[in-house]
């Protein structure tokens, strides 16, 4: 798969955003969901984001500051947009102030920062 860097970054951002939204929503309705849901072992958004990260240079070190800022901004925008739409529907227990911490955690784990 030969994709340009911008496409790869966008796919990376999309998957990480989805993964963070999923995590925060899961926390918001924790009492209502089953802890051991029957799922087949398919790759989730975070695992797919990992695949895209491995295609974005530099692979083994942190990304340039310009990229980091761009990625953080894009993820933050996407995640907050999704979560705000849920809040407007009546979701409770969604803490938007945690979004930045979540973003930093996953980016650190994927050697982006």
């Amino acid at each position, binding site marked *: 798969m030969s994709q340009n860097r911008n496409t790869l970054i966008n796919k990376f951002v*999309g998957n990480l955003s989805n993964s963070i939204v999923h995590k925060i*929503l899961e926390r918001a309705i924790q009492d*209502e969901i089953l802890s051991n*849901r029957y799922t*087949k072992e*398919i*790759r989730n*958004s975070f695992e797919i984001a990992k695949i895209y990260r491995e295609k974005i240079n530099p692979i083994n070190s942190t990304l340039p500051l310009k990229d980091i800022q761009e990625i953080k901004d894009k993820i933050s925008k996407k995640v907050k947009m999704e979560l705000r739409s849920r809040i407007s529907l009546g979701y409770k227990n969604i803490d938007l102030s945690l979004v930045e911490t979540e973003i930093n955690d996953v980016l650190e784990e994927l050697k982006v920062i």
Partner: protein
Amino acid sequence: MEIIAKISRGTKMDQIYIPKQRAGFQNGRYVIIKPIEDEIKKPKQEKPIFYNIKSIEPIKIKLISEIFSIIEHETEEQFVDNLLIVGSFLEKGFYFNDIDILIIINKTEIKIDSIKKRIQEETGITPHIIQIKIEDLIKGVSSDPLYENMLSKYIAKKRLILKYKRKINYKILDLHLLKSKSLIDNFEILSGKEKYYLIKNMLAIDLFIKKEKISNEILNKQIKEIFKIEAERIKENLIANKQEFIKKCRNFYNNISKQIQKGIKKENESK
């Protein structure tokens, strides 16, 4: 081969006469002799319970019995209420990758590492085990479309009586649907089986909202109707018109997403 014969008295040694015309028991072979009473006393092996299984290959039944006996051997009887085999292993043919096993536990969680290891070693099949309490299974099957699909067909150790009513919790469905977003965003990177699973997830949610029955057969039929492709082709990642297919997936996803959003709004208004 078994022969029932009587021990008769001889002059120097006693003997057991068996017919000269027989299948098996060739001369010179060693055999075990034991009293017939021991055999009669042996507890009768319970027959597994088949739910919605029209036909299944005999070798699979043999494997399932073997798996049940491994689990029974590796666990303490009082902690396990029932064992269920679900999923693609029960489909016709031998296209399964693993075997889905549901262990219904009553109180404490059991250690499944040794069970997994033994099943893998003794049958050569990778087990996918989930242990669950009956109350959680009922909660799952009443609120989760994939649970309902899973239990649409099974082979159980004992009879399973599940009394439940479908409960639509739109927030849970919202969370489940989010998984299928990956299908639209990562079409190139996903395997055929992953695509099939994510499509099934969307379709099952749709049927669940419509209060319709869910089973693999129904979902595969829906795939053909809506996406104009055989489920097998998706599993094998042989999708001819990718752009058209992604478009259909996106439309379908957005459509269910809208229904879910409406549902959440209604749920909150009625509180």
